[in-house]
Every structure is written in structure tokens, then in C-alpha cells.
């Protein structure tokens, strides 16, 4: 709760800083505030939280962990944002504020204990993102991204709400515990309203995390948005979406596993294939990352399909690994694009010669995304596979392996471009902030890959 308050206040403070044209202070203040929020979140670890505010919110370990990782990832992304927004417009403070607001929404999303909180959290986040996607106002791609995201987002919100309504109609409450109670106490006569609501809720949440066939917005929006925002969307937002997804399924719908599992299974497989196969033929690194992001949503779905106590760990590790690796990828992309003006694979040619450090970190990131051992991404995939296998979804795993193999294809393309192809290029400038972010992320990726014990058994 303190985190939420801190974030809200921080956002307003940032807005005021913008008002007073204190641009220099923006980043430090933001970072400081986020650090404080992070600290406040972390100290609530293992505090045996109970639902607060009439059962609206439960800041339990789950919430702490996911808030923390989201805030942490945001900090990394914002570190990279130095000089980034300034190139877009002069309203830098507003951007920071909106990002922080989105973060506040995310904190609500991961700690909700009532469907109304889920709804509001999601909407705060989504609205912020609609705005952020469109901040390059003169840029058609950015415009298109904002419009697509907005229209489809609003559309899917309708389904989410319809679903919540039906659940309410069946159970008479928005409170997760009461919904759970309803499921447990009436195992045989669960209302069709409830089932319908559940399905519609899946649609609404599925849209937010980008699961096929509700993923269509993702590639276009991710590509059109400013890269930094894409980084934010595909890491922090996705993590939060899964946390929200997982939370309600874990608390309320676990007993109905047999009902919702088959469609989710199909959606997962579809997501995996669409994400991976489409990524294969991309020429733009950024667009490849967007599809890869879709496919990673598929992997993260494993934890929900094989819902159990291990799922939280699995999603958390996977999301962390994925976020950190993606941040590296996007950070490097920002730099490369700034220099070459293009985000195609070819613009990475020969990077290793001039910027070995950058190339190395990006390689680590790609290996992590591809799920190669000794990187965090492998541990994530490993846990996902473990959890899915524990429910005997052998075929799902086999298909996942096929996809993992396809994935390696396109992740290695950039590595190949950096190391094995030559191009006349000048050195890409890395600001110290970038260096810190890249190094930190790479180190985290490797440490998690070698000793995942630090986060793999939090729950």
C-alpha cells in the first residue's frame, strides 16, 4: 500500500517538477522515488499480509514480488530514458508521470483482492499506455500504434467488464475470496453465468498479455511505439498482466481447472506458433522482438495451464528473466537505431568489432531469450517445462520444444549479424547510464542462470 501511495505522490511531484521546468531533477527524483517505492515494497515481504480496505487489496508476497520486479524493471528502463524523451517533446515530466501512473496501476493489478481493483488497475495501466504509445505525435507509426491499441484495448475492456459482470451475477460479489467460496461450496451447480464470465475474463486478460488470438495488437503496437515505451510495455506490462492473470486463477478458478484448461492450452499453443513462426521471417529487430514477446507470453501461459503452487515461482522467474533480457535488447536497439536510423538486423552488422561490450550483453540477452543454459531465460523455461510436465502436458512440451528451437533461429540472427558479419560502422556511443543498465542486466541474467536459487523459491 505504501508503494502505491509513494508512486502516486511521486507522479504528482514529477508533474509539478514539469510545471516548474526542473528538467534536470526529473530523472533523479523519479529514480529516487522508484527506489523508495521498491524499498517500501520489499520491506513488506513476509509480513503476513491480510486483505486491507474491506478486502480490496492484499499486499502479500505475491504482490510484493511482482511489484518489486516491475518497479525494478521500470527503473532500468527509465535509466535508459536519459535524453530519450527530450528528443520527442518538451513535456518530459508528463511522460515520466504517466509511466509512474502506469506503474501505480500495475501495483494495483498485482495486489488486487477485488475485481473492481483489478479493473481499475488494468485501466489505469492501459490508459497510460494508450497515451505513451502515441507520444511521438507526428510519427505515423506512433499514431497508428496508439489508435490500434486504444481501439482494441477499449473493445477488449468491454469483454473484460462483461465477464466481471457475469461473475458478479453468478456470485453476487466482486471479492476474490467470496468468488472462491462460491466455487468451492457449489462444485456441482455452478451457474452458467459463472462459466461465461470466466471465459470472457480470459478474453479480457488474454488481450492484455497478448495471447492468441487476442495478440494481434501486440506486434503492431510494439513496433509503432517509441522503443523505450515498447520496452516498458513488453516487459513490465506483460509481467503485470501475467501476475493479474495468475492471481485470480490461483485464488478463484483453480478448482475449475478442467473447464478452462483446454481452451487455454489451445491458445497457448497457438500463441507459441504464431509468435515464433512469424518472428522467423522478420527483417526488423524490433518487430522480431515484438513477436518474440508474443511467444514468451505463450511460454508464460504454461504456468497457468499447469496451475499450482509452483506456478507463481515459474512465472516470476520467467518474467524476471524475460524482462531483464528484453531490456538489454531494447536498450541496445535504441542506441543502434539512434546511430543507423534503422532497426533492421543489418544495422547490427559488425557491432561486435566496435562495441564488444554491447555486443556481448546483447548476446547474453539473446541467449537468455532463447533459453540457453547458464542464462536466466533457461531457468525460466526450465521451470515452465517442469510445471507443465508435472501436469503431464507432454505434447504441449514437445510443441514448446519445437518452438524453442525455432526461437533459437531468430535470436541467433542478431548474434550472427553482430559477430560474423562485417560492416563499415563507427562506434556507437554508450552513455554511462546505458553501460550501467546493460552491465547490470547482463550480470543479473547470468547470475540467475547460474544460481537461480536466489529467486526461484520465493514462494
Amino acid at each position, binding site marked *: 500500500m505504501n508503494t502505491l501511495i509513494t508512486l502516486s505522490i511521486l507522479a504528482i511531484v514529477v508533474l509539478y517538477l514539469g510545471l516548474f521546468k526542473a528538467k534536470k531533477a526529473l530523472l533523479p527524483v523519479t529514480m529516487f522515488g522508484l527506489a523508495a517505492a521498491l524499498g517500501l515494497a520489499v520491506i513488506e515481504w513476509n509480513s503476513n499480509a491480510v486483505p486491507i480496505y474491506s478486502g480490496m487489496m492484499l499486499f502479500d508476497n505475491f504482490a510484493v514480488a511482482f511489484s518489486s520486479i516491475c518497479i525494478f524493471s521500470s527503473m532500468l528502463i527509465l535509466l535508459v530514458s536519459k535524453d530519450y524523451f527530450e528528443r520527442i517533446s518538451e513535456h518530459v515530466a508528463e511522460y515520466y508521470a504517466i509511466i509512474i501512473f502506469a506503474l501505480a496501476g500495475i501495483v494495483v493489478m498485482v495486489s488486487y483482492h477485488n475485481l473492481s481493483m483489478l479493473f481499475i488497475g488494468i485501466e489505469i495501466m492501459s490508459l497510460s499506455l494508450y497515451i505513451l504509445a502515441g507520444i511521438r505525435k507526428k510519427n505515423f507509426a506512433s499514431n497508428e500504434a496508439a*489508435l*490500434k491499441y486504444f*481501439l*482494441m484495448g477499449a*473493445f*477488449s475492456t468491454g*469483454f473484460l467488464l462483461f465477464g466481471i459482470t457475469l461473475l458478479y451475477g453468478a456470485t453476487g460479489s466482486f471479492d476474490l475470496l467470496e468468488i472462491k467460496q462460491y466455487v468451492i461450496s457449489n462444485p456441482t451447480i455452478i451457474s*452458467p453465468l459463472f*462459466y*461465461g464470465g470466466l*471465459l*470472457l475474463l*480470459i*478474453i479480457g486478460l488474454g*488481450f492484455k498479455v497478448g495471447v*492468441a*488470438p*487476442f495478440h*494481434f*495488437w501486440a*506486434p*503492431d503496437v510494439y513496433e509503432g511505439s517509441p522503443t523505450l515505451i515498447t520496452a516498458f510495455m513488453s516487459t513490465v506490462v506483460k509481467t503485470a498482466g501475467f501476475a493479474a492473470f495468475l492471481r485470480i486463477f490461483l485464488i478463484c478458478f483453480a478448482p475449475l481447472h478442467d*473447464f478452462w484448461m*483446454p*481452451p487455454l492450452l489451445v491458445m497457448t499453443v497457438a500463441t507459441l506458433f*504464431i509468435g515464433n*513462426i*512469424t*518472428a*522467423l*521471417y*522478420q527483417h526488423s529487430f524490433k518487430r522480431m522482438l515484438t513477436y518474440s514477446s508474443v511467444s514468451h507470453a505463450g511460454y508464460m501461459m504454461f504456468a497457468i495451464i499447469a496451475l499450482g503452487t509452483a506456478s507463481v515461482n515459474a512465472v516470476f522467474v520467467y518474467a524476471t528473466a524475460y524482462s531483464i533480457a528484453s531490456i538489454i535488447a531494447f536498450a541496445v536497439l535504441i542506441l543502434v537505431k539512434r546511430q543507423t536510423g534503422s532497426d533492421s538486423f543489418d544495422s547490427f552488422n559488425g557491432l561486435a568489432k566496435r562495441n564488444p561490450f554491447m555486443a556481448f550483453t546483447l548476446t547474453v540477452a539473446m541467449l537468455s531469450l532463447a533459453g540457453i543454459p547458464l542464462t536466466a531465460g533457461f531457468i525460466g523455461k526450465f521451470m515452465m517445462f517442469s510445471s507443465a510436465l508435472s501436469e503431464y502436458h507432454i505434447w504441449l512440451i514437445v510443441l514448446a520444444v519445437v518452438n524453442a528451437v*525455432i526461437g533459437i*533461429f531468430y535470436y541467433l540472427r542478431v548474434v550472427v549479424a553482430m559477430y560474423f558479419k562485417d560492416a563499415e560502422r563507427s562506434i556507437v556511443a554508450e552513455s554511462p547510464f546505458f553501460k550501467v543498465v546493460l552491465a547490470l542486466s547482463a550480470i543479473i541474467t547470468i547470475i540467475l542462470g547460474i544460481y537461480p536459487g536466489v529467486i526461484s523459491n520465493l514462494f
Partner: protein
Amino acid sequence: MINLVWLVPLIPLIGFLINGLGRNFLPKNLVGAIASLAVLLSFGISLGIFFELNSSEVKSFTIPLFDWINAGSLTVPFSFLVDPLSSLMLLIVTGIGFLIHIYSIGYMHHDAGFAKFFAYLNLFIFFMLLLVLGSNYVIMFIGWEGVGLCSYLLIGFWFTNISYASAAKKAFVMNRIGDLGFLIAVFLIYTMFGSVEFSKIFPQAASMVSGDSTLILITALLFVGAIGKSAQIPLFTWLPDAMAGPTPVSALIHAATMVTAGIYMIARSNILFTLAPQTLEVVAVIGLATAILAATIALTQTDIKKVLAYSTVSQLGYMFLGLGVGAYTGAFFHVITHAFFKALLFLGAGSVIHAASNEQDMRHMGGLKKKLPVTFLTMMIGTIAIAGLPPFAGFFSKDEILAHVYEHNKVYWVIGVIGAMFTAFYMFRMMFLTFYGNFRGTSDQEHHLHESPKSMTIPLIILAVLSVIGGFIGVPEVLGGGHWLSKFLEPVFQASNNKMAGLTLDHSTEFVLMGVSVAAALAASMYAYIRYVKGAHVPVADTIARPAFSKISYNKYYIDEIYNAVFTRPLDALSGFFYKIVDKRGIDGLVNGLGAGANEASKGFRLIQSGNVGFYIFMMVAGIIALLVYGFYKI
């Protein structure tokens, strides 16, 4: 002395190492001396062993050196077996080996690879001795393959000539075909007897019933090994090609020692073969067929070494024929005598070639009798010996075999005698073409003709003497001899002899048989004399057409061509097919196809992402409908 048997192979090995490592800086004389001395020392020890064994009560000694391979129940000790059979072989190998070393000093004197040559020769002696001395099949196999290697190295000694190198390769590969049979036989033996040691196998085998199917398989496979090594049908074509090597090599490896390893091995395993009469029959038939086939080829050859080579194949066939009819002693006897006269003949041929400036075609020789008296004389002795005229060595051994053959099967005997007749003919033909008439080569060659140096002629003389007297170690009873050899080898063949009836021919039959074969040989040699000396007939040049039989014979029944067409080329074609079609297009194509397929799928798949919001929403709605339909049916 017997305990020092490990020195016998070791000394040549040391000789090999010294010459091999010092080949670039040791002077030629020293090289030759070291190499020869090494073999001489071995010979000396072998002699000692021989006498010690002869006087000893116990006739079989196993000298263990160290454990070589241990794997589970399998134990292969590195140990040597000294018994009459091996001690005799030791003498032949080291004795003839020594003579040939001496000879080579003269013969190879001008060759740039002098030291290399002697190193190889010593190495060969080493491996041959291992083969002979091994107390189990695996050690024997070491020698077996080792001599094959040396044969390869020595055939390809002048490797810049690509056809020589090919001949070497051919020899190695054909030997390997036999080796595979040998190896599998060893496995079978191991499973059957639980050991590969001779001393464990043979006593067990002696108590088995005849005709056991495993035994037949074992012996058949062993015989496959022998076929490869001893150049029998169908694996004999390498031996004539092997004449590409220097002539002393042909004498040592491809006449006297290595090629008889097959006979040695079967003689060693005699009890197994005795208990597998079916195999023996096959051995006899193949031996006979080889004997006659090679003889017919030799009839028309014009290359002096080729004649000798086919003659060797033919004689080896006789040895197998002997083995096949159970005349183990006779066969081994023939090994010994053959070693003498065939080594002699090869060395003599070498001397001729040496004199005639490396000319090997008999059509370009003639009239060398005057220029090369020693060579002529010694070779004539060898020829008489091989033709089987009494009392030279070949007579006794060949007749012993033929006597057994007669008892076994009369038809075989008739064919055998015909073969002997051919032998006499082509050998004398060779002699007449080479030494009689007028010289047909260039004047340069004629000018250059000279008798070989002492180092070459002395071995010739020694071998000639041996060819003359060598037969007396096995004079049969019928001629008033005691057949010392048979008695000496008795312990080795005892078990077999117990199983098989001995020779039951009465003396008169034996005399008749001898008479017939001698008469046949004499007749053939007379015919050769009339045709080539009186008629001064010279084989026609290659460009002129020959009569049908002559053509087939001259072209070696086209066997090389047939092999080429049946094995080599199809295999190469298969290789290309496997590589280009199965591997590249098929398997790899499938693998790459998966990748390409994924890529193609991606090309098509991504079009779904059309960029059109309306379409996206439409797809979403479709998904929602599907989901709701699922719910509709599930509830």
C-alpha cells in the same frame, strides 16, 4: 634358449627402430649391416631354440610376456608359443629373411630409400615372427595384420608411381577382407572355448565331435582369413599386382613367408579343421581351383615376375589342397620347400631384372645364360625343384600332397597333376625365354648386362643348395626315407592324425603316382623346350590379337575387370548415390526442409498480421466465438 624367444622378434624390431629413426644419417653400409645382423641374430636364436626343442621331451612351451587386453572374462595375454611348427617357421622366416636381407644390400644399393627399405624389412620380420610365435589367435592376428601393413608399405615402396601405390592399397584391402573373417572366427572361438589361447582351445576341441556346425563356421571364417592372406580364389588378384614392390620383397613376403601364413594358421588350427570335414572339402576345392586357375594364367604371362607370382598363387593352391585333404605335414612340407625354391626364383628374377636395367618383360630378354651364369644355374635348379622333378625339393613335397589327394579323390588328383604339368611348362617357358636364344632387348640394355654382385649371388647359391637338398627332410617311407619332418611335427598334428586315417596307399600305387607326375612334368618341360628353344617362339606383342584361350589367360580371365565392374564401381556409384541423393537431398534435405519450411510458413503466416484493425478485431471476435462455443458444449 627357448626362454629367450622374445628376443627373436625383438631384435628385428630394434633393427627397425634404429634404421627407421636413423634413416637420414646412418651410412648405407651400416644400415644394411644392422638390418641383416638383426635378422641373423634372430636366426641364431631360432636355431638354438630349434635344437633345444628337438632334444627336449616337452614339445610345446608357452612363454608369457604380459597381459595385453583384459576386458571382463576376456583375457588376451601377450605370450609366445614355441613348438615344432613355430620353431620351423622361425627358421624359415629368419633364415630366408636373412638371405634376402643380404641380397637386398646389393639389389637396393642405388635406391634412395635404402634405409627405409631395410627398416620396413625388419619390421616385416618382426610382425612375421609375432604371427608365428603368437600363442593365441589375437597375437597371431597382430602379426597377421602387421605383415599386411609391411606388405602394403613395401609394395608401395616406389610410391611416386601411382599404380604401384594402388597395388599396395589393393593388397591391403583384400587382406583386410580376409582379416574380417579371421576376426569373427576369433570371436566365435572365444565364445565356444572361452579363450583364445591355443593351449586351451585345442585340447578342448580334440574331444569334440566331428562336423559341429559352429566349428564349421569357425573354420570357414578362418579359411576366409587364409584366403585373403594366401591369395586364393577369390582374393588372389592382389598378389600378382604386389609384384610392384622391389623384387626382394616379392621373394620374402609374397613367396616365402607372408603368403604362407594362411597355411601356417590352418596347420596350427589343424584339429579344428579336422573336425570340420565340410570346411576341409571347401579348402581342398578352392586350393585346387586356385592351383589350376593360376597355372593357366601363368602359361601366357610375359612379365617374369608375373609368371612367378601366378606360380606362387598356384603353389599356394597346392598347399591348401594338401591341407584340404588332411595332408597337414605335406602342406607344411611344401611351405618349406616352396620357400626355398620360390625365394630362389624370385631372387634370380631380381638378378635378371637388375642386370637387364629393370626390364621385366621376357619378350625383351633371351640369351642371358652366358651373361648371368650363376643366376641361370641357380634359377634352373629352382625351376627343376618347382617342376617337381626328383630328387629336388619340390618333388617330395608335391608328391606327398598328391598322394593324399589321390587317396581323397581321384578327380582332384588328375586335375592336380595337370596343374603340375602346367607348372613345369610355364616355369621352363620362363627359363627358356629368359636365358636361351638371343637377346631381344635394346642394345643399351645388352651393353649393360652383367652378373649381379656377390651379395646377390651368394644368397642365390645358398637357396639353390637348399632347393636341392631341402626335400630330404621329408623323404617318404616308400623311397626309403624316415620322413623326419613328419616325426618332428608329430606333436602338432597328433590330435588330427588320431582322427584321420593315415595314408593307406600301397607302395606300388605310390610309385605309379610319382611316376605319372614326374612323367607329366617332364613331358611339359620337353614341350616347352621344343616350343621356346627349338622353335624360338616368342610371345606376341600386346597389340597383336591372340587366340581365344590365350587371350583369356593372358588377360587373367578378366578377373580384375570383373571385380572392378562388380564391386569397385558399384560401390563408388553407391557412394555417390548415398552422398548426393540420400545424404544431401534425402536426409539433409529433410533437415534443411524443416528449416526452410518454417521459413516459408513464416512468410505466409505473417500475412495474417495484416495491419488492419478491423481484421484484427474480426479475428478476435472469431476467437471469442470459438471460446464461447467451447463453453456452450462444456457446460
